[in-house]
C-alpha cells in the first residue's frame, strides 16, 4: 500500500491535519485509527465549551468531532478504523494491523503523528497499598459513564485537580453520586479556573490544595481514603489527616503524550513535554514526519489542537509538493524565567506563513506580569498578563517581519514583573 500522507490517530488532531492536507492539494491520504470510531477523546467529553475559537459557538466534544468527521467523509478522505499502528520503520514505512487486512506495510510520502495522550495511572504516581476495585483514572470513568453507560461509584474522592477530574466531579454529581472532595498536591489547581467554578463551586465540592493521598482502605472494593496536607517539600504533615468513607477514587493526575511509536522510530523527544521536538512546520527530527495535537504537548483546549494540526497538515502537503526549505536558517526557542517549555522548538523564518505562533506553559501561578519575547536578547514583543497559571496554555504571535535574525539565533520568552 502506498499513500502520499498517512495520519496516525483519528482524533481531532488527525482529522484536522488530514482535512487541511487535502485542502492544500494532496489527494492520496489515509487516516488510521485504533478505536471503533473517529473523533478520539472528544467522543467521551460530552460537556460543552469546545469550538469557541474555531466555530464561534459552544459545542460539546462529540458535536465538535462530528463536524470534522463529516467534513473528512465529504472530502472522500480514506480512513481505517479498529486499526493499530505498531511501528514506523525506515523510509516512512508504517506497520499496522487489523482483523480485516491483517498485517500491513504502508509506504507514506509524509506521516502525521496524532496519537494524542493517555492518562497517568495509579502506577505512575506510586500510590501504596492493596489494589481494591473502585480506583479509576478520571478519563476511564468518563468513558464508562458517558459512552458505555456504567456508573462507576456512589461516594467519590478525586485525586488531582486537572480538568478531566474537575469535569468528572460535576458529571458524577449530576448523575447522583456524592463527590466528597478533590485533593490536589500542588498549591494551585492544574485545571482551568472556569472549571473550578462551574464544576466544584457550583456544587459545593471542597478543593483541598497542597493535599495528597495517604491511604486507600478496603480489600475487594475501596472502602475509604485518607488524605493529608503537605508541606513546602510535599511531605505529609502529621495530624492533618482527613478520613473519607467512599467507594470510588478517581485519579486526575496528568496526561502523557503517547509517544512509544515516535520513540521507537528514533524521533527526538523533549523531556519537558514528553512529545517530539518540532519546528515551525510541526516537523519532527525525522524529515517528512510531522506531529500535532496532544502527542506533541498536552493542550487544554481542542481549539488550539485544531489550529496546530491544520498547520501540520498544510506543511505535510507542502512537503509532498517539495515547498519546504529544509536548509533555511534556523533559530532555537528557549524558555526563559517562569516558562516551562515552548513549542515549536525550532524556527526557520523562511517557512513561516504570516505569523509564527509560539505555545507555552508557565511554571507557577503569577499575577500582573509581562510576557517578553526576545531574539538574541533584543526585545521584539511585550504582552501584559493579569493572570497566568500552569493549567492554562499561553500563546504568542510573532509577525514574520519581526523574525529577521542570523543563523543560530535564540528566541526566548520570559516573564518579567510589571514595572520591573
Amino acid at each position, binding site marked *: 500500500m502506498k499513500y502520499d500522507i498517512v495520519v496516525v490517530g483519528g482524533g481531532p488532531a488527525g482529522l484536522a491535519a488530514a482535512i487541511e492536507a487535502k485542502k492544500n492539494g494532496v489527494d492520496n491520504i489515509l487516516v488510521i485509527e485504533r478505536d471503533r470510531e473517529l473523533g478520539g477523546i472528544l467522543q467521551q467529553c460530552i460537556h460543552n465549551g469546545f469550538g469557541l475559537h474555531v466555530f464561534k459557538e459552544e459545542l460539546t466534544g462529540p458535536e465538535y468531532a462530528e463536524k470534522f468527521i463529516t467534513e473528512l467523509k465529504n472530502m472522500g478522505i480514506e480512513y481505517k478504523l479498529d486499526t493499530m499502528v505498531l511501528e514506523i520503520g525506515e523510509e516512512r514505512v508504517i506497520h499496522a494491523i487489523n482483523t480485516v487486512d491483517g498485517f500491513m506495510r504502508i509506504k507514506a510520502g509524509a506521516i502525521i503523528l496524532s496519537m494524542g495522550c493517555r492518562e497517568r495511572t495509579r502506577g505512575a504516581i506510586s500510590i501504596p497499598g492493596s489494589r481494591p476495585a473502585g480506583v479509576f483514572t478520571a478519563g476511564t470513568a468518563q468513558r464508562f459513564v458517558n459512552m458505555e453507560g456504567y456508573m462507576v461509584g456512589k461516594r467519590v474522592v478525586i485525586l488531582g485537580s486537572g480538568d478531566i477530574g474537575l469535569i468528572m466531579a460535576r458529571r458524577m454529581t*449530576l448523575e447522583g453520586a456524592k463527590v466528597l472532595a478533590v485533593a490536589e498536591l500542588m498549591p494551585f489547581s492544574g485545571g482551568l479556573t472556569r472549571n473550578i467554578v462551574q464544576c466544584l463551586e457550583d456544587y459545593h465540592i471542597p478543593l483541598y490544595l497542597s493535599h495528597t493521598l495517604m491511604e486507600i482502605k478496603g480489600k475487594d472494593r475501596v472502602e475509604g481514603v485518607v488524605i493529608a496536607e503537605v508541606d513546602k517539600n510535599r511531605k505529609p504533615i502529621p495530624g492533618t489527616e482527613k478520613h473519607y468513607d467512599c467507594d470510588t477514587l478517581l485519579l486526575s493526575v496528568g496526561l502523557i503524550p503517547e509517544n512509544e511509536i515516535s520513540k521507537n522510530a528514533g524521533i527526538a523527544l523533549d523531556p519537558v513535554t514528553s512529545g517530539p521536538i518540532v519546528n515551525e512546520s510541526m516537523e519532527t527530527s525525522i524529515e517528512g514526519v510531522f506531529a500535532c495535537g496532544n502527542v506533541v504537548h498536552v493542550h487544554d483546549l481542542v481549539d488550539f489542537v485544531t489550529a496546530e494540526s491544520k498547520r501540520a497538515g498544510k506543511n505535510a502537503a507542502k512537503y509532498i509538493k517539495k515547498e519546504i526549505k529544509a536548509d533555511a536558517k534556523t533559530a532555537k526557542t528557549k524558555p526563559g524565567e517562569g516558562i516551562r517549555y515552548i513549542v515549536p522548538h525550532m524556527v526557520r523564518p523562511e517557512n513561516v506563513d504570516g505569523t509564527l505562533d509560539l505555545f507555552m506553559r508557565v511554571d507557577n501561578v503569577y499575577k500582573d506580569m509581562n510576557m517578553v519575547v526576545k531574539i538574541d536578547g533584543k526585545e521584539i514583543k511585550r504582552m501584559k498578563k493579569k493572570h497566568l497559571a500552569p493549567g492554562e496554555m499561553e500563546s504568542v504571535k510573532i509577525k514574520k517581519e519581526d523574525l529577521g535574525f542570523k543563523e543560530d539565533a535564540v528566541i526566548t520568552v520570559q516573564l518579567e514583573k510589571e514595572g520591573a
Partner: protein
Amino acid sequence: MEKHQLVCIVCPMGCHLEVTKENDEYNVTGNKCPRGKAYGMKELTNPTRVVTTTVKIKGGLLNRLSVKTKEAIPKEKMFECMKFIDSIEVKAPVSVGDIIVKDLLGTGVDLVAARSM
C-alpha cells in the same frame, strides 16, 4: 456599593470579573469581551447553566447518546431535569441536533442530541 469577584465561565479564557452594584445598576470590569459582562450580571440575578448528559439509546454503536439543553436552563432546575432525563430512552438512528425532549420541564428549552448515532 456591592462588590463581587467572579470568574467568567462563558469561555475558557476564564476572565476574572469584578461586578459592582450601585442603585440597581450593575457594572462589570475585567471582561475581555461583551459576553463576560452579560454573564456577570446574569450570574448575580438569574444564574443559568447548559446541562450536558446522556440518555439511553437502543440499537446504536454505544449504550449512551450524548445530549444537551439547547440553551442554558435555570441553575436550580438542573437536578430535577437530570431526574427526568434519566427516564428517557431513544432508538437509533439519531442525528445531531434532533430534539429529544421539547420544552424540558417547562423551561422553554429543548433537549437535543449532541451527536449522530
